[in-house]
């Protein structure tokens, strides 16, 4: 029972940050049909920016509570700046190209951004423990947990609800869904698709950054951060169905829980279980568990 509860919480905690990152990835894919490899960099940049300023501010003797503000700010700044530059500077000029080629371009960007981090932030790991220390810890299921980690689950929930609301209850949502369903149709409906693209990419980037920024206080923020998270969120998005928020949610829960289960019960399989699931889903349900509807074009 204890173990079960623990695995559940560990799993959900892991799922939460996976979901925040993957949500961005899947929105970008859904709208723009771009599998954005450099999404991992958004994550890393979010983490670095947050960690950097949380450290700076607390050195300047500011209240640690500010940390939470910084986290959000970092995510937004990273998303807007990087997102805008990349979409306007690179991707915009590639939409007519083969989608696989665009993936490769984002891979190139990923490599570049990885090293720009080194140049910008140096090689020393950053510790932004203040927000985590602030929230203290509680005992759940016989073991102590840091409230901060648990709060991650809440944040993920907020993001999920937010996305759902945006997509289903706002004008923007209807526009997005139109473009997701059929780009040509969107254009014919007089939607300003280029604008939608830019906004979407920035939005996705913000989510990627948020994932990193929020996890930052719990890890030592060091180079190479983005490399693993990007394949993990690929797995999530593929399992859930590319372009579906609900899918991303389910996908990250499945993968998070499975991974936690592995760590507790069968540590050897921890890494490979994730991708095994991904492969199996691709084989038996290529469109993913929650594939968004597609127009028939034959």
């Amino acid at each position, binding site marked *: 029972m204890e173990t079960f509860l623990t695995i559940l919480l560990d799993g959900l905690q892991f799922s939460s940050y996976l979901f925040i990152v993957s949500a961005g990835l899947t929105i970008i894919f859904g709208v723009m049909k771009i599998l954005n490899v450099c999404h991992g960099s958004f994550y890393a940049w979010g983490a670095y920016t947050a960690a950097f300023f949380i450290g700076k501010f607390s050195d300047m003797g500011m209240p640690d509570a500010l940390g939470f503000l910084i986290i959000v700010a970092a995510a937004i700044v990273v998303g807007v700046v990087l997102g805008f530059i990349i979409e306007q500077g690179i991707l915009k000029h590639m939409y007519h190209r083969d989608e696989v080629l665009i993936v490769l371009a984002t891979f190139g960007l990923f490599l570049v951004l990885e090293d720009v981090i080194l140049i910008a932030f140096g*090689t*020393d790991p950053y510790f932004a*423990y203040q927000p985590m220390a602030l929230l203290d810890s509680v005992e759940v299921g016989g073991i102590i947990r840091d409230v901060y980690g648990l709060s991650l689950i809440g944040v993920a929930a907020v993001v999920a609800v937010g996305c759902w609301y945006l997509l289903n209850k706002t004008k923007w949502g209807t526009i997005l869904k139109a473009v997701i369903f059929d780009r040509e149709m969107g254009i014919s409906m007089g939607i300003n698709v280029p604008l939608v693209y830019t906004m979407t990419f920035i939005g996705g980037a913000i989510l990627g950054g948020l994932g990193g920024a929020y996890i930052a206080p719990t890890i030592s923020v*060091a*180079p190479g951060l983005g490399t693993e998270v990007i394949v993990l969120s690929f797995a999530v998005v593929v399992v859930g169905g590319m372009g579906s928020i609900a899918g991303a949610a389910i996908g990250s829960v499945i993968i998070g829980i499975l991974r936690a289960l592995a760590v507790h019960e069968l540590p050897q399989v921890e890494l490979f279980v994730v991708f095994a699931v991904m492969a199996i889903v691709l084989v038996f349900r290529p469109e993913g568990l929650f594939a968004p509807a597609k127009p028939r074009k034959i």
Partner: protein
Amino acid sequence: MKHTLIKKALSLAAASTMVLGVGAAHAKDSITIAVPSFLAGGAAGPFGIPAMNGAKMVTDAINKGTLPAPYNTKGFGGATAELIELDEGGGATKQVAEYRNLVEKRNVDAVVGYISSGNCQALAPIAEELKQFTIFATCGTPRIFEEAPRKYVFRTMGHATGDNVAAAKYVMEKFPDVKGYTAINQNYAWGQDSWRDFDLTMQQISKAKASEKVQFPKIFAGQYGSEISAMSLDKSDLIHTSFWGGDLEGFILQGAARGLFKKKKSLMTVGGTAAYRLGKKLPDGLIIGARGPYGILVKDLDTPLNKWFVETYKNIYGIYPSGPAYQYGQAILAAKVAYDKAGSDATDEQLGDALRGISFEAFSTTIKMALGGGHQAVTENGYGITKYDEASGENIVTDVKFYPASCVLPPEGVESVEWIKGGMKGAKC
């Protein structure tokens, strides 16, 4: 026509390699030493950079001849050394490729460094193949000199077996009532050997039971939430880890936030590096080692060489030298010893002969090249318990105890694992 142009293309490709390939030639009165270390990644800040600093500081002093006696002669056998700093990240295979370039393209005279056991293990055979005088500074896996005799490869510090045998002995002395122990180690040579040696020793000297679920996360994983939960739930009251660098610091911070170290005794064989960097964030009561008489364990050791090392380092880098700084420093020192003996124009063979089996005074201890046919150093090994000292605002270690090499390392010609399994015969404590 197309003919000629494709030929041109080929020759062009070839030519470009040739042209770019003008290697760095070196004069008689100077030598080049390649110093690989982690310059990027989680291991850089806590490990790679201090290590590199140590190497640079010592090399600089040697070039100027400002080391304390008996090393106050200028240069390496008279020659000033120029360091080539490079990153040892990116995986063993990449390092092998880079090493080949170092030797065959950049024609370095000596290679001194390497932190990752994975890299050392991969490079030992390559160094032998290329007949390149190489001193491993920090990496710990005992396999290197146990799996094959070496001619050109040396290691100037004790290997992981010493760390973990000493650790086990220390634990049983200070906390004889330990019931069970679990562990979290990185899943590569270093982590696997560390756990194996510690576990085997505990089986020999204690009644404590090993947990059946020990964690081996991927190196540089960074997030240990689930592992921490798993260990919290585990019945064991002791945690063994050979984590180092960013992984260790991440683990300590995440574990502390989850009260892990309040709940269980924790033994960190490479904990020393974290002591200076984490400051108040480092929980009290951790059992930490520095893989030998280095860093925080010898901070106050009052010998001219050590005082020089600690003070100079503090002056230049504003922080006390941690283990890696010592280990790289003494590896460079070993190079000087070899060159002083064999001369600056010595061949790799002669350098090897000069270093083989000798013992020399290093900054914090005497290094005896006693194992692996005189290629593997032995030193005493010790542990202490962390405590934050409000007065100085620094972490200190209490209950420091050192065990002589003869007590924690197998005699020449005996494999570590066999030695421990056989009840550590001939150990003189």
